């Protein structure tokens, strides 16, 4: 069977390049924009998603994890005494000021954890060990912020709000949504670095006992701590994410960028595939004059579009890899997951076939008598 669709596509190499360029541009644009959106969304709630906690106890009306009012640590003991609680720990997230060895300052977010417990610890540690946080003045930062913080290697000393701190390890990929990097340290250190009173915390993380009903436990804790809010980790992560992404406008602009990417991509692909079909309009007219059924013509155009989609998508994957790699190195949190890539494959095929359908309308409107007009 003559492979008309494939030949139409491959016959003119320059046209093929133009077609594929259009698709690659569209796919990369959409993936990068969506990757930025997911990257930003994820970075807003990284410490929550990786906390291993079931419940978060905050001061009343805490809008998001980065801004929480402190409360008395007596609440921590009340939590521990609540049936259904397997473990609890005090936890601090608070802005502070980092001072580099050259005297430059940077805003940071100090995260105070208990290295002996399982909740709220730094993750993806690539140098050092969480137990080393127990050393006096020890902190851990992410390697992507080395330059920003002026850190070169483990063992170097810096200052956080006039307290000396020593870098004992590095994590990888723990981004903050804001420009302030996370600095992990012990709870006690964090109290000093963030000027907390010794009996204050701003979160209590809770691990429910095995088999405990989380909703019931949440309600019971709420009953015992009427001046606090009790969230499941998922609820608080969502609240934090919503705050940054939709209340500040930062997320809206990223989301609009992603939506715009989708629209621009769709337009580019539609025009590209449409132009490819129009290049062969006379041949489609001949097919119609010969008596080819519409289904045959549909099949040729759709097959052309589908082949272009698969090829364009494959090339776009390569380009996306370099773009996201470059973007990440430059500090842009482009999060491209396999789910996004799988979804994008179907979006690409869908876009190309939709574009094919638009051009089919043009072909179906052809007067077969055009073949007699020279």
């Amino acid at each position, binding site marked *: *069977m*003559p492979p*008309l669709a494939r*030949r139409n596509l491959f016959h003119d190499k320059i046209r093929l390049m133009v077609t594929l360029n259009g698709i690659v541009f569209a796919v990369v644009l959409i993936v990068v924009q969506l990757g930025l959106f997911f990257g930003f969304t994820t970075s807003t709630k990284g410490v929550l998603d990786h906390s291993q906690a079931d419940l978060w106890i905050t001061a009343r009306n805490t809008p998001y994890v980065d801004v929480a009012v402190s409360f008395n640590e007596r609440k921590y003991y009340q939590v521990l005494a609540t049936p259904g609680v397997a473990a609890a720990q005090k936890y601090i997230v608070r802005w502070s000021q980092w001072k580099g060895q050259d005297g430059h300052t940077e805003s940071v977010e100090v995260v105070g954890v208990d290295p002996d417990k399982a909740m709220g610890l730094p993750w993806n540690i690539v140098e050092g060990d969480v137990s080393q946080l127990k050393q006096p003045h020890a902190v851990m930062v992410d390697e992507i912020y080395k330059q920003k913080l002026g850190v070169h290697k483990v063992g170097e000393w810096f200052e956080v709000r006039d307290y000396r701190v020593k870098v004992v390890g590095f994590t990888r990929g723990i981004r903050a949504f804001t420009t302030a990097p996370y600095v992990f340290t012990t709870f006690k250190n964090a109290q000093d670095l963030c000027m907390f009173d010794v009996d204050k915390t701003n979160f209590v993380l809770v691990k429910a006992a095995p088999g405990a009903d989380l909703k019931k436990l949440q309600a019971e804790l709420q009953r015992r701590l009427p001046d606090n809010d009790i969230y499941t980790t998922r609820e608080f992560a969502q609240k934090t994410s919503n705050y940054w992404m939709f209340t500040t406008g930062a997320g809206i602009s990223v989301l609009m960028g992603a939506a715009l990417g989708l629209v621009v991509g769709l337009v580019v692909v539609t025009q590209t595939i449409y132009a490819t079909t129009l290049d062969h309009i006379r041949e489609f007219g*001949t097919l119609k004059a010969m*008596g*080819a059924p519409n289904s*045959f013509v549909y099949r040729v155009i759709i097959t052309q579009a589908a082949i272009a989609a698969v090829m364009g998508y494959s090339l776009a994957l390569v380009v996306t890899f370099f773009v996201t790699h470059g973007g990440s190195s430059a500090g842009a949190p482009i999060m491209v997951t396999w789910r996004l890539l799988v979804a994008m494959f179907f979006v690409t095929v869908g876009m190309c076939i939709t574009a094919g359908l638009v051009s089919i309308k043009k072909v179906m409107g052809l007067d077969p008598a055009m*073949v007699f007009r020279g």
Partner: protein
Amino acid sequence: MEHEIAISVSGVTKTYSEGSSATTALNGVDLAVRRGELTMMMGPSGSGKTTLLSIMGCILRPTSGTVQVSGRDVTTLNERQMPAIRLRHMGFIFQGFNLFPTLTAGENVELSLQLKGTSGADGNKEARRLMELVGLGEKYDQYPRNLSGGQQQRVAVARAVAGSPEVILADEPTAALDSHSGRSVLELLQSLAHGQQRAVVVVTHDNRILDFADRMVRMEDGMITQS
């Protein structure tokens, strides 16, 4: 010997309307073309030749009158049925050849066979036979751009006869060819009419090929003036 009628048109009128004005391209045309005959239609530009060819080929619908193909009235068929009539009963040859440039000469013929239900090894074998028939067996794998105009029109003839339609309709098939190539194509069409009992209708301005005609139809102002 009286030949079987392949296509007959009776009282056919075709009017093109544009806004409030109307142009009559055909005005009460009656014509029957027979199998085994090569019919040539001549006339000045705008006389209605190509319009009549399009109506006989079930590409255009007449404004009034009837068209019969192999005894079946096709005037009442809907838009979905018309292409099937073309596919089954007609083979077309165009002035500009209209070969698919992305397919080889042989594949152009195979495509026509595929549309008519013969594909795979059978289609390939039949396409090769038809390419041999038009004297281009060795050009099977050549792309149209690598063939001369005469060779391309021969491929178009092979494509038109694929699937053995009763009627071959050719619109100015020699217009883009030199004298030698034009005569060679007409010899081929004549052999299809005489040797295979097909009805061949050729619209032409080319006086050099009139001696191939079994029958001449002259048109003027949308009417047949000589038949």
